[in-house]
């Protein structure tokens, strides 16, 4: 077992290796892992069909509801409600001392709504904040539930009630009735979302606007809570009270990382829930009546971790990549600017500068300067021949743009914000890399197409950049690049 520990977090690694070991151990018993897996995929057992369809329906239903929880920041409401339904389950069982899905469903829904109401009441009538109210409902309702459970175990006929399946969930214990219940709740959830999609979306993202349109915001909030209670209660049997909230939140959070559109998020979340449900049922079946809930949650968590790191837009890896490429670009642009400055100091008489001049200008070693130049050359901005560095037309244009952004911004700060001329450099140094074309045109307009920055240096204009030259009205030199292009 110690050998496996390095993979501790990688739940799947655990599962695979454990399955292999267990298969070896159980070779003498009735069926091996492989046989059980084959049986799983051929859908021979009717109980398996129930388990699998139940788990997948659960995934869809919880995934859809969870999407709204995540965007409404109600994730912990799901957690509190899923614990709060426990006394309702016990009372539903006590109704006629059987695990009748309907009476348990009714009892649990009532308990869940009571819990949601209590949260609201504590928040409205005491100074306690939402988190304390949720914690109170979660724990005290659960405590009542535990008391009822232990009382049921002590009365005749209560011991074999199978109520403990509600704690961690057992998909194999799903009956036809449970699956029908899940299916009808799923249909109800999908129907409600299809009919009220616009209303739910609006009340989730902009309550104030929804209210100003005269929408009954409270009504939609409570209808969501009601649907949530239905979803939780129907899922209890398969995933257990403790982990329902995971099935609500994790697939939805993974979807939230992958898309910006609510419709797409609902779809993705339902698909992730479906897959997680299927995986949970599979591992639970193959692993011989292991609890289903935890496996579903781990499957969903794997999806979430994948989205967290490798999501195309919001993933950590892609963000780090974007940051890196941005910093590379900024370094290149700073080098271009330094080359421009050297040429400008020569009053645009030369097209080629030496690496040494650049290194002196940037106060760095020759090696550093060479490394920077190599990077800039790879981007096609300069050509290097021996010790001489000269711009390509493209590089010249980019360098002019950067310098112009810098100087325009300096001028803007001294003119419009009345900042002293010796204080504007730092700010311009940061913004020169991000000013867009439209902003630059506006700046030029506001500054009356000024040609000089606060320090008296020339601002290369749009025309100059387009034509690839710098016109210097005060000097006879026509500037760098003019000869090349004309």
């Amino acid at each position, binding site marked *: 077992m110690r050998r496996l520990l390095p993979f501790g977090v990688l739940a799947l690694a655990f599962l695979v290796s454990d399955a292999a070991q267990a298969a070896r151990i159980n070779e003498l018993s009735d069926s091996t892992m492989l046989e059980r897996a084959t049986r799983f995929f051929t859908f021979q057992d009717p109980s398996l069909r129930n388990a699998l369809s139940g788990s997948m329906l659960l995934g869809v239903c919880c995934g859809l509801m969870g999407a709204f929880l995540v965007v409404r920041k109600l994730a912990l409401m799901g957690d509190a409600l899923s614990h709060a339904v426990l006394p309702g389950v016990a009372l539903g069982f006590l109704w006629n001392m059987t695990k009748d899905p309907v009476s348990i469903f009714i009892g649990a829904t009532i308990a869940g709504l009571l819990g949601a109401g209590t949260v609201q009441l504590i928040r409205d009538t005491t100074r306690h904040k939402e988190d304390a109210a949720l914690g109170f409902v979660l724990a005290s309702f659960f405590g009542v539930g535990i008391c009822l459970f232990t009382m049921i175990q002590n009365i005749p006929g209560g011991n074999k009630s199978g109520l403990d399946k509600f704690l961690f969930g057992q998909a194999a214990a799903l009956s036809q009735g449970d699956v029908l219940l899940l299916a009808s709740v799923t249909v109800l959830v999908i129907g409600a979302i299809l009919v009220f999609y616009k209303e739910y979306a609006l009340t989730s993202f902009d309550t104030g606007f929804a209210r100003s349109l005269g929408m009954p915001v409270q009504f939609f909030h409570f209808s969501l809570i009601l649907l949530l209670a239905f979803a939780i209660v129907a899922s209890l049997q398969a995933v257990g009270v403790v982990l329902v909230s995971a099935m609500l939140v994790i697939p939805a959070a993974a979807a939230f990382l992958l898309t910006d559109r609510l419709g797409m998020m609902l779809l993705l979340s339902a698909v992730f829930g479906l897959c997680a449900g299927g995986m949970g049922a599979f591992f639970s079946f193959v692993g011989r009546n292991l609890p289903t809930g*935890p496996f579903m*949650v781990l499957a969903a968590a794997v999806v979430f971790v994948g989205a967290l790191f490798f999501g195309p837009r919001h993933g950590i890896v892609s963000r780090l990549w974007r940051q890196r490429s941005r910093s590379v670009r900024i370094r290149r642009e700073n080098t271009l600017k330094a080359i421009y400055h050297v040429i400008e100091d020569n009053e645009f008489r030369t097209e080629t500068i030496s690496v040494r001049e650049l290194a002196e200008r940037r106060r760095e070693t020759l090696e550093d300067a060479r490394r920077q130049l190599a990077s800039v050359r790879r981007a096609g901005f300069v050509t290097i021949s021996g010790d001489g560095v000269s711009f390509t037309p493209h590089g010249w244009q980019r360098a002019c743009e950067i310098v112009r952004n810098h100087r325009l911004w300096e001028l803007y700060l001294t003119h419009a914000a009345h900042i002293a001329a010796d204080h504007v450099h730092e700010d311009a140094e940061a913004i020169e890399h991000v000013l867009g074309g439209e902003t630059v045109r506006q700046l030029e307009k506001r500054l009356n197409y000024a040609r000089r920055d606060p320090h008296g240096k020339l601002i290369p204009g749009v025309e100059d950049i387009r034509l690839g030259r710098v016109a210097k009205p005060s000097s006879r030199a026509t500037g760098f690049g003019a000869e090349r292009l004309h």
Partner: protein
Amino acid sequence: MRHLIPPFDWQRVLVQPWMEDFSITVWIVLMGFFVTAACGLVGNYLVLRRMALVGDAISHSILPGLVVAFLLFKHVSVWVSFAGALAAAALTVVLIEFIHKQSRVKPDSAICITFTTLFALGVVLMSMLETKGAIHIDAECVLYGEIAFVSLEPPAVWNGWELGPPSVLRMAAVLAAVALAIFVFYKELLVTAFDAGLAKSLGMRVGVWHYGLMGALAIVVVSAFESVGAILAVAMLIVPPMFAGQLSDRLSARLGLTVLHAALSALIGLHLSVWLNCSAAGAMVVAAALLFVAVWPASPIGKLLRPSLRGEAPIFPGCPAGSRGQRVRDP
């Protein structure tokens, strides 16, 4: 349904536990009191910092910590469990922060994702070990513990004196340590809980106090874990501070009220469990919640009765003291 609630026989419910079963009762009540008081004292700061549900998260995610610690050290002992639980608590806090800082997932979702995943991992590891026969942990025990077992432990003996069940003594030590820490660092904990900005400007290391509180939370929860289970420990963290918060505005008074509430709920809970023949830990949580419900409307500082009792309109925040109940107009 009719057999469920036994008739209330005051001889059986109130007297017998303290006469014939004294040696059992006293340890259960003491254990309940120690657990509730220690959790409640730490919980005061959690509730003030609006981190009540971080307590929920940590109490769940301790489970994989315990199992992994068992796998690493191959035996069960107090220190091994403590180490595993602390590591799991640290991992939880770090993961929650990582998820909500490094992505656009909101903090509430981050809490939920972290602890449910860790808890699921713990249950999976546990059930695998169970199938192999390596260990037997009762899954339900994890959730709601069994406080009645403390009286079955062989008592700790010191110099020929029978002191009592070791877990009760351990819990007493934890409570004493928590109380001492609060006494010594009262000012620092107060300032960091109410005004992190001020604490920072006074040169306090806010982060250190934050993680110190998380560490204390982990220690308290792991010691409470075996007697009341993961979820009821959450109740002990949240309900006593809420009770105290209804009755007082001052932190020192709240801490005292927390201890009082702990004693009352342990006592009432015990009798409730004897009467209804149910889990003692569950009954203590029910008693704690009922005590909160009892003071809910009686609160002098709550919003519920104040306006109607004083015949005043609700006070607008930022309204000057002289203009209570009047409409505030722009000058």
